[in-house]
């Protein structure tokens, strides 16, 4: 009883030493090895991940061959986007529109014919000031620090206020169960369920593995350029600084991050 304090200090000191044991036994370098039991060729490795301050994409539609839909097929295939076969229930993340539809304010009847017939690739603009994020009542759609406007399909209640808010028609609602309508399910990406809204996610699941977005990768003509707008040396920044480009409905203040080279 008389050496109580001493005993206590001894035990406390020993306990403090044991707290330091795990970092000593498992040094930091060991943490790099991530156990991946998957047969997925691209195992997750934090050092490979692509990062940016503001992801953006530039589209040079003049490079698109007539009738080519490689980007659309790649995206919809990789992300299990269903094909319901009718425009009412249609779900699409990326598609093509005529110039007059994508840029109603900039088109007129005296434009050169090639521009009038141009098929522009349109997708979610991943706006820097997104109205859809502002209106979501559960923050099921939210903005990441790197600029990507994400969807949390677990939280979405399907109220479709984001669809009303989007000035670009980039969002689709699953009005019925999509699973029977997916051509070939990609097992490495989940499907969605009925009753939630979905849209392009800039392939954030590929970025984290060091891969470019599916559409960018699939384009053989290199018409889609993807990169960090806030990096002055990035390919997209140099391209956008060099060639004249338009953004859709730029006057609305949404600051869209898809730049169309015209």
């Amino acid at each position, binding site marked *: 009883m008389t050496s109580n304090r001493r005993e206590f200090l001894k035990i406390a000191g020993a306990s403090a030493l044991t707290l330091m044991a795990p970092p000593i036994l498992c040094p930091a370098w060991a943490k790099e090895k991530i156990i991946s039991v998957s047969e997925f060729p691209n195992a997750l490795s934090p050092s490979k991940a692509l990062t940016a301050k503001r992801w953006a994409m530039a589209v040079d539609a003049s490079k698109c061959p007539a009738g080519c839909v490689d980007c659309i097929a790649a995206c919809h295939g990789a992300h299990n986007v269903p094909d319901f076969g009718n425009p009412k229930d249609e779900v699409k993340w990326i598609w093509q529109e005529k110039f007059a539809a994508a840029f109603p304010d900039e088109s007129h009847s005296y434009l050169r014919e090639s521009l009038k017939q141009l098929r522009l690739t349109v997708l979610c603009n991943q706006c820097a000031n997104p109205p859809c994020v502002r209106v979501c009542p559960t923050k099921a759609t939210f903005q990441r620090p790197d600029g990507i406007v994400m969807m949390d399909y677990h939280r979405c209640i399907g109220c479709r206020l984001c669809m009303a808010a989007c000035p670009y028609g980039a969002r689709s609602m699953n009005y019925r169960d999509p699973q029977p309508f997916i051509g070939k399910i990609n097992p*490495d990406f989940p499907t969605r369920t009925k009753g939630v809204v979905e849209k392009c996610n800039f392939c*954030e699941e590929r970025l984290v593995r060091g891969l470019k977005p599916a559409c960018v990768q699939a384009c053989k003509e290199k018409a889609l350029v993807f990169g960090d707008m806030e990096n002055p040396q990035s390919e997209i920044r140099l391209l956008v600084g060099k060639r004249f480009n338009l953004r859709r409905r730029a006057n609305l203040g949404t600051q869209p991050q898809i730049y169309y080279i015209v």
Partner: protein
Amino acid sequence: MKKNKWGLIILGLVIFIVGVTFPFWYGKGKTTPAPSLSLDTPVIARLQNKKCVEDTAFMRASHMKLLGTWRDGVVREGNRLHTARDGRIFETSLSGTCLKCHSNKQQFCDRCHNYVGVKPTCFSCHNVPGEVK
């Protein structure tokens, strides 16, 4: 008059007691055996160190919470790494990690879920590799 009232009251009480104790006496004598889960999958057979992300007791009690944390971590924070209690690091993915080993959903996941009567909605989106339609 009073006799009639008492008759009705007792009848009502009997019906109530029968109804409220229904789960206890219905199926009395029938035993439903606890589910036996099958770990017989190709990937598990190939594993040298047959250890799950966490130990069985933890998983049995808390795998739903773990998956919930993983879900919010991946989707909302972009955090795709989980450090297990023994220090190993895993990718936080239901289909990419858990279901790669436990690819036999009907003989593994469903057996307990059906026994307890829960219907997790995860599988309506997160398809099981091998179960691809």
